């Protein structure tokens, strides 16, 4: 099967470029820059050096012995993206895009952020390269992720509160797009997930695919075979695509994307695009599955984790769902919160609430598997930012 998009950025019927005309020239410029540099030795060398020396890659593939033993089934490995500089996988993509922005001569960077991890990573690379940085963030997310707001400001970024809609990630993207339409000639939009108009879903996936390349090499070193399952949480879906991509053609490797099941099955209570209320639609530049009402108005979403709280999903995931290469499941807020504390206690690793969704699903299936089976869970970020949320929900 072919897993590459066509030249217009479509995987099957998903993807494309649905934007106001004003942005098209910038998207064409970005596409051209990306394709001319992605195989350029100088560009790759600089990208890889920064991943190594600035972000600390490769990240370990850690055998979670106590977790595996507690669950009494499959061997669970954690891909430790939380050990990246800034504490999540987001920096992989930011390093790639800031190098492109520099080559395109753009000195001003804008970004959206949900949980704040992408905002922090963007602010970090902007500090590193001495660029102006403006991050849009929903005011509800600013409340939930106060620590990351301070981190971004400390790094010299301007954080602009977005008070429209549900005041979360979707609204931050709208505001970033409005800024970009206005300042398109001088500004690069450093989009943080496998979302938006072509070439972003493809480019962000490529910059994140280092996760899967490392994981494959590491598991072959440790186990001399490929894993049986890969599990990753899916908001927009960049950490999941980053892990999955390298394994797509390894047919025996099963892949599971974990969406936010929130607090119920009704529209508005969750962020599971493949569940009740998710239909094919167009949002923020791309065609994919979208949570919406019968009129095509975008639904509000809910998740305890700000990074998964989004009404659409990357178009490549929509394709992988429809061709059944990846299975998508959901995990509720309370299951994720339980996994958050469980992993902290049995492994000494506090996961991001986003990543805790992937851990929670691994905890569900591991006991049903045998001891010689292997699960790799993408631990996409660390959970320091989520302590306040956990306290709010659990009352510790």
């Amino acid at each position, binding site marked *: 099967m072919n897993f590459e998009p066509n030249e217009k950025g479509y995987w099957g019927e998903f993807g494309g470029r649905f934007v106001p005309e*004003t942005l098209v020239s910038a998207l064409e410029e970005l596409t051209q820059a990306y394709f001319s540099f992605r195989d350029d030795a100088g560009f790759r060398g600089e990208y890889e050096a920064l991943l190594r020396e600035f972000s600390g890659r490769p990240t370990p593939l850690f055998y979670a012995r106590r977790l595996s033993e507690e669950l009494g089934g499959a061997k669970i490995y954690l891909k430790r993206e939380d050990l990246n500089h800034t504490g999540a996988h987001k920096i992989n993509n930011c390093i790639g895009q800031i190098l492109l922005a520099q080559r395109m001569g753009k000195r001003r960077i804008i970004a959206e952020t949900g949980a704040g991890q992408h905002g922090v990573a963007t602010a970090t690379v902007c500090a590193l390269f001495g660029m102006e940085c403006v991050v849009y963030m929903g005011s509800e997310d600013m409340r939930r992720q106060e620590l990351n707001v301070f981190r971004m400001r400390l790094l010299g970024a301007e954080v602009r509160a977005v008070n429209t809609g549900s005041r979360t990630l979707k609204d931050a993207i709208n505001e970033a797009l409005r800024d970009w339409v206005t300042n398109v000639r001088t500004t690069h939009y450093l989009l943080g997930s496998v979302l938006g108009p072509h070439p972003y879903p493809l480019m962000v996936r490529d910059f994140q695919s280092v996760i899967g390349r490392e994981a494959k090499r590491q598991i072959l070193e440790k186990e001399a075979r490929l894993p049986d399952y890969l599990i990753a949480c899916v908001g927009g879906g960049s950490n999941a695509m980053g892990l999955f991509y390298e394994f797509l053609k390894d047919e025996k490797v099963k892949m599971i994307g974990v969406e936010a099941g929130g607090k119920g099955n009704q529209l508005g209570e969750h962020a599971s695009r493949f569940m009740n209320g998710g239909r094919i639609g167009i949002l923020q530049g791309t065609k994919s599955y979208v949570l919406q009402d019968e009129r095509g108005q*975008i639904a509000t979403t809910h998740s305890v984790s700000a990074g998964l709280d989004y009404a659409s999903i990357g178009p490549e995931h929509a394709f992988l769902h429809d061709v059944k290469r990846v299975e998508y499941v959901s995990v509720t807020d309370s299951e994720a919160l339980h996994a958050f504390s469980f992993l902290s206690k049995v492994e000494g690793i506090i996961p991001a609430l986003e990543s805790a969704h992937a851990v929670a699903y691994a905890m569900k299936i591991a006991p049903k598997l045998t001891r010689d089976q292997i699960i790799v869970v993408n631990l996409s970020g660390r959970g320091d930012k989520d302590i306040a949320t956990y306290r709010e929900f659990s009352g510790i």
Partner: protein
Amino acid sequence: MTESRIERAFNLLRGSGQKGFIPFITAGDPNLESTLELLLMLAEEGATVIELGIPFSDPMADGVVIQRASDRALRNFFHLEDVFRIVSNFRRRAETPLIFFSYLNPIFQYGFERFCKEAKLSGADGILITDLIPEESDDFISVARKSGLDVIFLAAPTSSDERLKMIAKRSSGFIYAVSRTGVTGMSKNLSQEVKDLVLRIKKLSSLPVAVGFGVSNREQIEDIWQFADAAVVGSAIVKRIEDIGSDSRLVEGVRDFVRGLLRNKR
């Protein structure tokens, strides 16, 4: 082929040496009944074409004024069928061309064929979809053409001549030139780059060119009339609707504002 209502309107203007005025309002703001009255008033005041915005939850190309209008309209929870009913009522009483201004998703969910058929049946003349660029429009255009709807595309100051050619080729009715890089909204000064854009379009197409985004006063309209065929006024009118709100003086208040915009002869 018979002349479309939009073509006829622009031909009449040309024949009399006049320039056009294209007002925009959001359907359902502040409510659907007022929308019908406002449409009829705009026709009476001599609008060349009227743009009727279909509200959307995530209007990424709009500034705050039209965002708020969309929010107000969406709180009135209505369906596209209700908008078509208003347009049918309008069409029974006025001949002014009317086009829909929408984001793609509500139309995609309604179904392209069903939308175009019912839009045409209601008496609408065309549609502009903000987030639909020519490259992505094949499916939609063929359906719209079959129904007899004009499809209007945006042209931007950042569009290359190559893109303008594609836009011109796919457009019918008129071409909508965006006055500046930015979202909809009022501005004090008209950008200089818009004149250059209109002249570039005129070299490539014989279609009428309307200029919009940031046009909010009489001086700007007259400026645009020097080099383009029509001026679009959106946010400034919508702001007036917002300021007056659901009130018996709404239609007359907006009428006064529109008359102020058009005080000088075109």
